[in-house]
């Protein structure tokens, strides 16, 4: 079986004067999957979304979205996609209902479709209030509802939960998961590793306008390895424990005198928690806690991008 890609881009480049926002971004997002573009501010995520949604023309490179060529057939692309922007792409001087009815009319959809989505996103009660009086979470829901009017094949979400409280964030996450289950391809950008971890089937770490790393959340974590950490008892020096961890993991341990911890990243599959404890014990070091766990995506991110910083 061959994979069909909802988004396939090659060598996308974009410059703004001196700033090289994208330096050859390649993406391959299989149909029906969720792809997370993860990266810090200024990495090029938003530029990528603006290009893929036909708002910007790339300086170089090509892309096919839902089978339509981005450069030659932007109108075809627009018929298959929807976007939820970093800033709500709705009209603040219209009510929620007026917004959805306007977009529905532009899409030749019946008014009932707008009302259906107001209901679905819990906005029926606020339907006749001006959108600019909505809370951040309500605005984002209205924006998402606007994007879903026409049942797009590919949905782009640019930092969908930035600035939202946890409850609103969970509501957006539930909506995205629901869409993915029903087969919509989702491309989302985020600065939150937890968000990418929870929603994305594949993660692309974007750095300096390029895909620095890509893989499933588990693969990215495996790439970095596990983190071994011990918490020392008493008030003695940390160095002996550091020496043991250095020998076991082959990587430079980090010491925290405050928390009395010594930790190090390991990619050695034979290093198990019992072996870690035995080795520490054999060295005559007293510990109150020990752990060997997969790194969080935050650690992955810091490590993978931090590495590049030292190389540069």
């Amino acid at each position, binding site marked *: 079986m061959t994979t069909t890609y909802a988004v396939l881009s090659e060598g996308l480049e974009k410059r703004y004067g001196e700033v090289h926002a994208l330096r050859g971004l390649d993406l391959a997002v299989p149909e029906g999957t969720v792809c997370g573009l993860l990266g810090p501010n200024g990495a090029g995520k938003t530029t990528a979304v603006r290009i893929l*949604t*036909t*708002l*910007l*023309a790339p300086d170089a490179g090509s892309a096919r979205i839902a089978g339509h060529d981005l450069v030659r057939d*932007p*109108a075809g692309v*627009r*018929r298959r*996609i*929807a*976007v939820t*922007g970093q*800033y*709500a*792409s*709705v*009209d*603040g*001087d*219209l*009510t929620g209902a*007026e917004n959805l009815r*306007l*977009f529905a*009319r*532009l*899409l*030749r959809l019946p008014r009932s479709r707008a009302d259906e989505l107001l209901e679905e996103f819990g906005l029926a009660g606020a339907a006749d209030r*001006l959108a600019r009086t909505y809370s951040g979470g309500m605005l984002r829901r209205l924006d998402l509802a*606007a994007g879903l009017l026409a049942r797009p094949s590919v949905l782009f979400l640019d930092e969908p939960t930035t600035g939202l409280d946890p409850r609103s964030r969970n509501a957006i996450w539930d909506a995205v998961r629901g869409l993915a289950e029903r087969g919509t391809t989702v491309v989302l950008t985020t600065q939150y590793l937890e968000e990418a971890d929870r929603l994305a089937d594949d993660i692309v770490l974007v750095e300096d306008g390029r895909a620095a790393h890509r893989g499933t959340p588990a693969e990215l974590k495996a790439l970095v390895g596990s983190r071994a950490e011990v918490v020392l008892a008493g008030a003695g020096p940390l160095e002996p424990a550091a020496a043991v961890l250095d020998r076991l993991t082959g990587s430079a341990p980090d010491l925290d005198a405050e928390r009395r911890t010594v930790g190090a990243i390991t990619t050695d599959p034979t290093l198990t928690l019992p072996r870690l404890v035995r080795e520490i014990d054999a060295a005559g070091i007293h510990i109150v806690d020990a752990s060997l766990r997969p790194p969080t995506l935050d650690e992955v991110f810091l490590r993978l991008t931090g590495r590049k910083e030292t190389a540069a």
Partner: protein
Amino acid sequence: MNALALEGSALVGRNLRRIRHAPAITVMTQTMPIVFLLFFGYVLGGALAVPGAEYRSFLVPGLLVATAAGGLMTGMFQAAQDTHRGVMDRFLTLPVSRAAVPLGQAVADLLVCAVGTVPMVLVGLAMGWRVEGTALEALGAFGLLLLFRFATTWAGILLGRVSESEEAAGQLGSATFMLPLLSNAYIPTDGMPGWLRTLAEWNPISAVATAVRALFGNAPVPTGAAWPVAHPVAGSLLWSLGLLAVLVPLAVRRYARR
């Protein structure tokens, strides 16, 4: 073309609804000229050599044209707001014609201006201004006013679309109230120094004001004026249609540009 009509009318509705929810700017741009009319008609008019009643008959058509020129400001405000707010991303990622957004804005603005002219006409009538020509000529005058409004709105849309920010557009837009001052909208150009007179008479506002005065039968076409003022109806049509022919494609291209 059918698609553009459907999308354009949806966006006309959008712009009218926006005005209903936030009428302040629209009300201001339509009532300021009435304040001007009273100020020029009674405060300044009393000090002018022209007999007061005659000056007020001269002034009302001038103010109607100055109001029509206000499309420059309203067009700029609205287009800059749309351009610098998130909603534009939605419009541009929808499969709709690139001309629909500016067209919807321009047509809505025209409707608002047509309705907004009524109070001004009523105040003018109360001040002693009358339609002194035929009804057909009067209709022609209103037609020229609306055509000119449509042209200035498209100029505003283009400027608003290319503006750096909403604030920049706001400042530039507010500065456009000066344009009627450099025309014969408020005072005849005869008394101006030669170079200023030439400048004022080549201001499109002067041609339209002269045409409207002539069609309402309020004032004759001045002699010895520059071509657009000496041939005011042709001059007004050429100015308005010429501006539209240049500005509409430019504005639509700016909306389509990625």
